């Protein structure tokens, strides 16, 4: 039975825990603690070790969802959590002062992992502010020489997060059929 692992990363309050909760078929395992530093200005509790959720597929396969802590002081967890991962879901908050700085930071922080796997980006809270637009995220990502799915998402909406994860999985394997029949691919 195949086991897959996907990592959710991003700054504090970008919606990583919420996204995992939206997708998970089990109650998520969270390591939330009361925020005591600047994080408390954005939300009362924050992830300190990891979040864990699970998608049970019909064929018995499992997709394990791991959320990294947003705060950099817990970055020692990032390498641990990415071990064996299929790809990275980077959640960015459009209301933050400089979301491009966040993007650059996480792309650099997970550079080795992304190079070996796949990246998708979900931008949250675009309903609160339309600027910067997704086109600008696309341009910023292009400055890293990368093309990846960048979607506007509501982390509370299962469909949104599901599409993000599907885009990641299809980017790894679009499902090209290989059986040759009557001279053409079928």
């Amino acid at each position, binding site marked *: 039975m*195949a086991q897959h692992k996907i990592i959710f990363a991003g700054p504090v309050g970008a919606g990583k825990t919420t996204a995992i909760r939206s997708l998970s078929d089990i109650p998520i395992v969270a390591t939330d603690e009361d925020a005591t530093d600047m994080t408390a200005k954005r939300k009362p509790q924050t992830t300190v070790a990891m979040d864990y959720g699970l998608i049970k597929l019909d064929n018995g396969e499992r997709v394990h969802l791991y959320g990294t802590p947003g705060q950099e002081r817990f970055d020692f967890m990032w390498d641990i959590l990415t071990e064996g991962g299929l790809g990275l879901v980077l959640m960015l908050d459009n209301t933050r002062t400089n979301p491009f700085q966040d993007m650059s930071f996480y792309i650099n922080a997970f550079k080795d992992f992304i190079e070996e796997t796949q990246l998708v980006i979900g931008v949250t809270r675009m309903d609160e502010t339309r600027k910067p637009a997704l086109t600008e995220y696309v341009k910023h990502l292009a400055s890293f020489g990368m093309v990846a799915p960048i979607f506007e998402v509501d982390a509370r909406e299962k469909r949104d997060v599901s599409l993000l994860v599907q885009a990641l999985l299809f980017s790894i394997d679009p499902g090209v059929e290989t059986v040759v029949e009557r001279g053409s691919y079928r």
Partner: protein
Amino acid sequence: MFKGLFGKKTQPIPKVKLMGMNERALNLFTMFLNSSAKGLCEIVDDGSHQIVIIDLDAVDNARMWLDVRSQFTGPAIVLSVREQSLTNAFWVSKPVNEDHFKSALDKAQKALSQPPSQPAAVPHSPKAPLPAKTESQTEPIKLATVTTKTPSSTAEKTTAVTSAAAGGMNESLEDHAKTCCGELADEVYRDPKQREQLFFNSSDTVLGLLRQAMTLTKEQGIARIAREGAHPLYVGYAQDFVSSPMHEAYLRAICARNIGESPVKVELVDMDIKTIGASDDVRMRRLDNVLWKTALWSSRGRVERGTSLDAPVRLRAWPNIPRLMSVPDGLRIAALWVTQPTSLLDTARKLGVPYRFVFSFYCACQAFDLVEQLGAAKQSSSIHTTKTMTQE
């Protein structure tokens, strides 16, 4: 989420069952039915329900819908952000609008008094649908298939997923595919003699008008697209604005027409956004969404004349798929074009999807200037007259 008040009830209170909602949504909707919509229906969970109300947007709910339809042939009210054309089901767009809900409930109640509808029947020998086609239609549960690494097992799995209750759903799924991608059969794409049918001139369609209006308002201002006696469409590209009194269905209808038959004016107007106001139809309020849909409905499985069918297609950037009308297999097509630029014809063959999905998706992406054909001659200028508006 659920706003407004309802009028007085005029019919016997039907018993409804709520399905496909998480705890939060269930609480909200129950609150809605117990306050604003009080007395319109009675929530039951003892199997005595006459109508099912189901939220179709959650990831597993396409499967749930199949299960519902295999056991319950009565009327259903489906809640979704996307238009749904399902047999004996009445769509209510989200966020739920009181009038739409009441209207759907009225229709469901009328359906109650009629004999069970035929389409719910499951055919004994369903035509072997293309696996990918079926897969695409059950998009919310696609996750189950995409992680399967081997394409052949994906196909097997997809078939298995739908075999239980494919009947009534299949018909509706075909309706959905027609809605976004037209009806051209694969044979037309394979037959060089019929190739003419695969092309259209966007300048003869609403898509061309929309592009024209976007070009006019590239820097500032509002353009009005109008034909005498018809609903106008206001576009302000720089302001990321679109508004119209027309309903989405009307837009879809005019997308199918050749505008050359009735002159349409596209002109700058001295009006501001506040004066014009928002569209009544919530589905007509995002410019990116309107452009995407207009491209799909104008394309209907065709591409702009001059497009090469053999040159590899490369996707420069992904469309903002969660906020755009879904195209069956759009995610797979996009992923292929990013990772392995592939021609339009080969894309359909390689992915095992109907050609019209590929052609429609290409046309929609082209409207946003997201695609390019490698090694192909530059296409007509009208294609790229607008600056990239990937996901604004």
